[in-house]
């Protein structure tokens, strides 16, 4: 018997005690379970980034986003950000830049879209609130994600990668409407937005 600060003498490559063997086998088996779960869930779970990826010059992505806005904008603005309502099945573009997300998106419930994310300047983080789904947005890369909104509502895009001193004001908006019951939904939303709670944090 010796401690960890003493040199073991002679041959120390000896068979392990039974308790130790059992533990190593159990730990290894558990690692294999974890190992199997990740690829399995990738195929069966349907909860992964879809992996549509391309390089894109930041300027080219900005032009694409501008075209997208010009084609599908509805004429209203959200605090100065154009609102865009693309048809189901279309490619939609969302540009992150210091410290804005453009445009504001109005999507249909249960329709499939391909969402393209990229940045005009530095890294940004796409964090969909309140669902808490997060993706890294990297300049020079077009990140394509197949998305199908499954519930109607008023969502926020919080930037969760540090992007300079205005990082904490960078919030965008995605609105999902249930076209079957669009009229009642919008009325309800007006109520939510006009509630005065938003001012409480004003004193930082």
């Amino acid at each position, binding site marked *: *018997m010796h*401690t*960890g*600060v*003493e*040199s*073991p*003498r*002679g041959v*120390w*490559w*000896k068979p392990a*005690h039974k308790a*130790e063997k059992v*533990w*190593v086998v159990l*730990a*290894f088996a558990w690692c294999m379970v*974890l190992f199997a779960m*990740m690829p399995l*869930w*990738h195929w069966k779970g349907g909860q*992964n980034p879809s992996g549509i*990826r391309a390089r894109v010059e930041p300027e080219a992505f900005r032009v694409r986003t501008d075209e997208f806005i010009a084609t599908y904008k509805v004429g209203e603005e959200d605090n*100065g950000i154009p609102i865009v309502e693309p048809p189901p099945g279309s490619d939609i573009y969302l540009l992150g830049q210091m410290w804005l997300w453009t445009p504001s998106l109005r999507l249909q419930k249960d329709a499939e879209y391909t969402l393209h994310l990229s940045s005009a*300047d*530095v*890294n940004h*983080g796409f*964090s969909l*609130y309140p*669902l*808490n*789904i*997060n*993706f890294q947005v*990297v*300049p*020079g*890369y*077009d990140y394509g994600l197949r998305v199908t909104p499954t519930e109607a509502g008023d969502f926020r895009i*919080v930037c*969760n*990668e*540090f*992007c*300079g001193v*205005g*990082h*904490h*004001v*960078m*919030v*965008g*908006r995605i609105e999902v409407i249930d076209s079957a019951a669009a009229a009642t939904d919008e009325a309800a939303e007006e109520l939510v937005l006009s509630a005065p*709670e*938003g001012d409480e*944090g004003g*004193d*930082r």
Partner: protein
Amino acid sequence: MKGGFRICPTTALRVHRQADGLIKANAVAATVLLLVGGITGLLVLLTRWQAVHLLDAVMFYRVLTIHGMSMLIFFIIFFEMAILYFAGPVLLNSRVPAPKLGWSMFWLMVLGAVMVEWTMWTGRADVLFTSYVPLKAHPLFYLGVILFAVGTLITVAVFFGSLVVAKREKTYEGSVPLVTYGAITAAIIAVITLVHGAAIYIPTFLWSIGIGNVDPQVYRMVWWGLGHSSQQINVAAMVAVWYLLGALTVGSVVINEKISRTAFVLYILFISMASAHHLLVDPGMGPTWKVVNTSYFMYMAVLASMIHGFTVPAGIEVGQRVRGLTKGMFEWLRRAPWGDPGFSALVFSVIIFGFVGGITGVTFGTEQINIIAHNTLRIPGHFHATVVAGTALAFMGVTYYVIPLIFRKKVAFWPLAKIQPYLFAFGMLIFSVAMTFAGTFGIPRRHWDMTFSDALFDVQFSPAVNLVVTVMALGGLIAALGGAIYILVTVWSVFLGQPMEGDATYVDARSS
């Protein structure tokens, strides 16, 4: 340079004068940077605690950058250099092979650290710890990191040299001790890490002075080869310190050298791929690359930690039983030296690192869970349990032995030192768990204002968040108190403490 050895009255090890000096210098530098990192950490905490919200946005991001660099790079690597001088020359009864080189590299590291600190404090590097390109810092920021890394790399080479010298001069018999073996693991991982660091910081430095370009995605990939792998130096060094503390506090036994050493080898082989889990929701890499790197390779490194998580406590139990504490199942645990801060730090380090840090880390390394955890407070919740409650706490524990054995001073304020690991571990546990919970609500990390008062659109987190963040802040304050006591005790003992009794004169090697 003066040489000569003293015989340690406690351990009977032959300690080289230069090993003593270099351990002291690196430990003092580590403590100074721990103080810088601790004060800035407290400021970060008092700002994120929305009820206080102390700093303005500019200062918050600046101080957060300083906290990250001072703790994760400077404090911890200086301390690890001290560990290398201990695990090499001291444990092997050998001399430091190139003391002049060792000292110049120490001063090079100090210079690099000072350059980086200067750029950060003067607002020339508000880019956070990760400094993701194309955020740009002052060129001296990158140059400082490069100089620090070069100093570290050559100090690691001096450590490898000490192994060769000890072997050639036959200062030990048989194989190197397990603690030294663990330190060798940490040193090899350090080399891998620092090569990544050079591969990314040199092009980034050139880019910052206007030469060439750095792709943001490539930067993220190679940078994490440094950023995460450097945490693996910490893991390997921490596990070596676990075995060391086990030996020093209760004479714990190495149950099976083969198992423990194989586990260390698993770290070397697989742990650098684990840094791929930082890129799980990145656009640049495909699913196959992500699954292979984070799943298969990372789990083999996890296996290594699972093994040490068994052998360290088992070694303590067997060691205690050998000393006669054999009654029942738990006499060995009940009658363990709970008043020895080295022992309590060891126990809490193993438990919090494994059960909080380890489990959260492994789950975040899964593609699907990463989607709901990436860049939320769950991430710092995880790594405060690993690096702080795990590594830093183990290093604090070993300090209570470094002070009498190397500095030859009595530990001052002993009653405070006894409770220090309890305070720090308890505070850090509450802090990390609450932070992790806060992250499950989607609260971003690295964020100045979670009320979004100046944002274009309102974001209303669940009111439960305020409670969780308050709990987090209280845990952080308790941990900060524990950290302050640690610094008080170490600084007072080293500079104003009573010298230990016993002969500590250095005798030239040839005459002894």
